[in-house]
């Protein structure tokens, strides 16, 4: 039980996907303009990551590993993740058209979101069992959302600040992300 707790803390804080592993930078920069879309994107990623991790683990253990097809890992996982994202898009379109509009191009971009694929592949590398894989997926996605929400909050504040023209926009975002990342370095060593 305690190691599951460690996985959660590790994935959310210590080895945060965006700020420590530097995966999924694209939506991190793209959808963090305001809190609402950040939360929406986070929700979508949590949903996709948990499902993707569960399904990719099953595919790896019952299809790829028995036939020694580990070399097909990347393509098989991308296939599953792509279809999952399609599914999420369909559901969102039906359930919440406004959120679908707000996420815009970034929802289809989860398809090629390296965080989702990275998470699935990491679970295989770490040789997690099924429960740990699902927990790790959920915790990683929560960490991703956490970073996104923090960053969008900072960005919302910065909208109203006086900023020298040469760092306005993207340059300031990268500087902010760097400082945020350094802050997360403080968690290093918390979980081994």
């Amino acid at each position, binding site marked *: 039980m305690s190691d599951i707790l460690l996985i959660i803390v590790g994935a959310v804080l210590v080895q945060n996907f965006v700020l420590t592993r530097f995966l999924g930078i694209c939506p991190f920069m793209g959808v963090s303009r305001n809190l609402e879309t950040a939360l929406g994107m986070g929700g979508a990623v949590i949903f996709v990551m948990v499902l993707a991790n569960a399904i990719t683990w099953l*595919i790896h253990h019952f*299809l*790829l590993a028995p*036939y*020694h*097809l580990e070399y*097909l890992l990347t*393509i*098989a996982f991308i*296939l*599953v993740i*792509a*279809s999952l994202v*399609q*599914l999420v898009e*369909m*559901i969102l*379109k*039906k359930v919440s*058209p406004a959120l679908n509009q707000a996420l815009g191009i970034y929802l289809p971009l989860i398809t090629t979101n390296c965080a989702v694929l990275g998470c699935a592949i990491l679970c295989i590398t770490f040789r997690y069992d099924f429960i740990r894989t699902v927990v790790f997926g959920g915790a990683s996605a929560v960490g991703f959302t956490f970073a996104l929400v923090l960053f969008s909050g900072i960005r919302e504040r910065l909208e109203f600040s006086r900023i020298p023209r040469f760092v306005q926009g993207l340059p300031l975002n990268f500087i902010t992300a760097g400082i945020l990342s350094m802050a997360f370095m403080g968690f290093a060593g918390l979980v081994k």
Partner: protein
Amino acid sequence: MNPILIAIIILGSVALLSALLLGIASRVFHVNENPLIASVGEALPGVNCGGCGYPGCANYAKAIVDNNVEVTLCAPGGNEVIAKISALLGRAVVAKDAEVARLSCFGKPEFCAPRCDYQGIQTCRAANLQNGGQKKCLYGCLGFGDCVSVCPFGAMSMVDGLPFIDEEKCTGCAICVRECPKKLLTLQNKKRQVYLHCASKEFGKVVKEACTVGCNGCSLCARKCPEKALTMVDNLPIWDWSKCTQCGLCAKVCPSRIIFLDGRPVPKEAKEAPSA
């Protein structure tokens, strides 16, 4: 068994399964969108100029169908598109006269000299921030062509230091109207033949000192108009288009010849004919 075959079978079956699932999901989560939005969107020209005030043609189409927005906002489409959309929606066709952008200045550099040597950023907007720009006339066109660079239809070009508007290409999208820092461009009914090419509200003496082709507010046009369609406001004639018959007399009597008739200044010899 051949390992390549196994790989193909397994990957293929995974793909087939996902495809099947997606197919079922697309049925279950099917969203009924109003087919009118798509057909209205097709009727619009699709240039996404934003002249209607909506971000892109698709959003305007949605606004027309969902919020009953009027169909006459699309300037590039003109009457043809209005008729098409009205037919789709079953509304009465509202004809709208085509509009084009026209410039209220004829102060080419040879007529209206610069009062300083402006060497800053070469845009009207930047020049205008420096105490109103480099022209002697504070109302005059600065001639850096901000309007030309924003025109999405290639209807504008710089000719002799002033933007020239090709009225055949101009769709009246009003993007240049919003761009001009001097507010010299306005949308005008394309059919109107007479148009004053000056915006200076100054008194005659000030206008004449700055520019040789400025309107000095002599009000000759207003006095000579047979229909009494012109009134002088702020030293400029204002047309009452409901009275104007486009006779062109105002253009002929104008001593500065800046009331254009049919897009051109009236030549000198024609000026004498009606007054005789």
